């Protein structure tokens, strides 16, 4: 082994340590989103993600958040190439690990390591998405690695993990198998409590829309078995953006002697298909800076060396005029797809689409929200769920309230605290309590005191508004046998109701509640206001 190889091996191990650390930090911050006592550091990986920051600035037409951190990532890329992809990106770490799973024969590895024209696809996607974003439709989050991993973990992977731990420990608890005085619960319960109290922080994540997101994640990860780091090579628009910055980096692969015998080992180990076999003329914008090729080269022909930044020599992926034009047209087509429905144009409102309190007006909300699902991770009652078509295609996987089992906790605003882009405005708690996200209404064909002559008013009991948005009237209700029963029939005060949905969540009807909340009257939307507030009477009685 040459000294060059030894040093490369050392750097590869250093890279692996950084990668494990990065993914661990990512998961830690993600779990911390649910910890209302923790600060707002959960958005760190969005702050350093230049695509998230650029898209937020473009879509919102405002410079927001931590763009300086993202600028740091950009400068790092200009200097060192796409080391973000190779060393830091937490989704990249997952792809890296899964790529490693496949035992590869030399022939496959040679084929898998070769350049493919499809690597241009990510640049086309980036162009289309950026145009969309500029026009106010932010779909970056569907593809961005930080948002994709956050979403997949919070509504897919972690709920799945929680289910395994919860169900298995409950099964052990309920059967309580024991050998003499040794109870199996002595082992299972501490593990369960560690998971519930320290890792999942006492919230039970259940997500009706999680299956599709998990499925997409599984497919994206499984594609690594077809081509190593499939997502990073062909799809990832953030990788593409960094690839544009890394077209002529300072640190670049350099041939240091003429000993290359074209053995192809470097091609086989290149996860990025950056054509290391072309040495000085490799595709710098594709290279992850992983050092695999340096380590594997028996002739010691390759090394990463500093050159003058922006100096020529390396090759670049040629996206091409036609593809660029095609991508722009694709972006316009996407916009048409998003906007042809009356809802997208604000002409009618989806009653089911209840946004978290503090959410901006729908067009602004959609331009900011990057579909990361951090709010869903943060929500203590798991009322926040990813949309499917409720907000139109444009609003895919954005957060909405689905009452039952969750509801919006009156004394909580954790979703807005963790939102990385300000799509949910972080109001003061007292202000948040005044925000109407919807309005409750009774279905008197189901509500027990109206429809079935039974006492109930569970909704009134749970209404968290201090002066009770749900009140009741005592009414003599005739029963079938001719007698009457004095019942409390609940009503909603539209001026007080904030739409928190706990009434719907706690209604004895667990299939279709007798009181349901719709988006009517939501503060953020001036056109969704069917009811004029009651005028306060003046001293003259008017």
């Amino acid at each position, binding site marked *: 082994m040459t000294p060059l190889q030894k040093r490369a091996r050392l750097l590869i191990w250093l890279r692996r340590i950084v990668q494990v650390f990065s993914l661990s930090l990512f998961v830690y911050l993600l779990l911390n989103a649910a910890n*209302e*006592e923790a600060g707002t550091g959960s958005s760190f990986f969005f702050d350093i993600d230049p695509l998230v920051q650029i898209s937020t600035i473009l879509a919102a037409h405002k410079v927001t958040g931590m763009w300086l951190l993202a600028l740091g990532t950009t400068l790092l890329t200009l200097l060192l190439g796409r080391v973000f992809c190779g060393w830091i990106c937490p989704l990249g770490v997952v792809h890296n690990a899964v790529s490693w799973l496949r035992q590869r024969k030399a022939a496959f590895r040679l084929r898998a390591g070769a350049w493919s024209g499809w690597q241009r696809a990510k640049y086309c996607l980036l162009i289309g998405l950026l145009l969309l974003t500029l026009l106010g439709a932010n779909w970056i989050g569907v593809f961005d690695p930080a948002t994709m991993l956050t979403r997949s973990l919070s509504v897919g992977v972690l709920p799945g993990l929680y289910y395994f731990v*919860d*169900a298995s420990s*409950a099964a052990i*608890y*309920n059967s309580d198998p024991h050998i003499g005085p040794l109870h199996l619960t002595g082992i299972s319960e501490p593990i369960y409590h560690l998971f*519930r*109290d320290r890792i999942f*922080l*006492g*919230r*039970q994540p259940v997500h009706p829309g999680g299956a599709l997101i998990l499925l997409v994640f599984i497919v994206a990860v499984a594609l690594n078995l077809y081509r190593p780091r499939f997502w990073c090579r062909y799809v990832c628009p953030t990788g593409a953006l960094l690839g544009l910055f890394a077209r002529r980096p300072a640190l670049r692969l350099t041939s240091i002697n003429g000993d290359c015998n074209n053995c192809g080992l470097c091609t086989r180990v290149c996860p990025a298909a950056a054509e290391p076999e072309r040495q000085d003329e490799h595709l710098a914008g594709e290279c992850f800076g992983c050092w695999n090729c340096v380590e594997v080269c028996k002739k010691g022909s390759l090394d990463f060396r500093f050159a003058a930044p922006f100096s020529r020599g390396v090759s670049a992926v040629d996206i091409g005029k036609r593809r660029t034009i095609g991508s722009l047209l694709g972006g316009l087509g996407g916009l048409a797809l998003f906007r042809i429905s009356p809802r997208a144009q604000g002409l009618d409102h989806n009653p089911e689409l209840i946004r978290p309190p503090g959410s901006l007006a729908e067009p602004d909300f959609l331009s900011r929200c990057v579909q990361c699902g951090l709010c869903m991770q943060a929500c*203590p*009652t798991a009322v926040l769920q990813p949309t499917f078509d409720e907000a139109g295609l444009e609003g895919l996987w954005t957060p909405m309230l689905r009452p039952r089992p969750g509801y919006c*906790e*009156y*004394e*909580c605003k954790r979703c807005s605290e963790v939102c990385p882009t300000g799509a949910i405005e972080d109001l003061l708690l007292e202000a948040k309590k005044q925000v109407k996200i919807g309005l409750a209404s009774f279905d008197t064909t189901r509500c*027990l005191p109206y429809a079935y002559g*039974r*006492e*109930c*008013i*569970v909704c*009134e*009991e*749970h209404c*968290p*508004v*201090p*002066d*009770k948005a749900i009140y*009741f009237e005592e009414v003599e209700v005739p029963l079938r046998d001719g007698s009457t029963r004095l019942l*409390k029939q609940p009503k909603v005060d539209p001026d007080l109701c904030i739409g928190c949905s706990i009434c719907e969540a*706690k*209604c*004895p009807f*667990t299939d279709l509640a007798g009181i349901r909340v719709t988006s009517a009257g939501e503060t953020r939307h001036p056109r969704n206001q069917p009811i004029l507030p009651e005028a306060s009477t003046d001293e003259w009685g008017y």
Partner: protein
Amino acid sequence: MPRQTRRTFLGGLAAAGGAVTLGSVGSLAQTDVADMSITRLSADKIEGVDLAAIADELTRKSIASLGGMQRFVKKGDEVWLKPNIGWNRAPELAANTNPDVVATLVGLCLEAGAKRVRVGDNPCHSARQTYRRSGIAKAVEAAGGEVVYLDEKRFKEYKLNGDRLDAWPLYKEIVDSDVLINVPVLKHHGLSKVSMAMKNLMGVISGQRSAWHQDLDLCLCDITNFLKPHLNVLDAVRALTANGPQGGNPSDVITPCVVAAGVDIVALDAFGAELMGHDPTTIKSVARGHAAGLGEIDYRKLTLKEMSI
């Protein structure tokens, strides 16, 4: 071990031959051990009082009047304290049991030799936030108790054989504990007018408990009859007078500065109802409980010890 009931406790005490002596016997009727105690702060001292300190003192005096915690908790017992931790509300809003009352009870149980004192409820709001904002989690941990979050999958169906309910899922660890101490807060409730000790037991159940509202009083009698808490401590240091059971307006909260305790849950609730300005016979759960033989609605008939401090 057979379940200890109120009667076995009293029997045990009779056998002990009145070994327990009380400092003050002023208002005691016949025996030297009261079945119910009412401890209040004199009205003229209430204004500006340190409620945390007074909650502790009222609780201690109340339990002492009953013969001390050792009357209920034996060495090595596993105790479950069931406060009302129902709502994500600060202690000042009187929606949950006063954390200082709970902490003092934890301490008394441990002093009496309890092996383990667990505190838990099945809240209506997010458990984690509710335990925290109520101040109870912190207070209990500081006092040496264990804070327990109830798990939906760890409820077990029990035969209640009640008048209204045949069977219902209850929390196994609560049913299995040696001593159950029920620690409600006195507060307004839209349906039942007042929420007190019997109503507080709804925190032990799971399942479709919202359906209980359709016949709340009989359901409460059934759960009371099944669980028979060994001791009930009614926290009226603060009381919520309107917009219950969770309130939210500081102006709806009063500070009676009273702690009452007793083995007779109906008597205690009758007293609470009076304190809230109701005739106990108009509170259905109290009247029904009396009729069902769960306790005495006329709490003055019990050996009662009232004390002002």
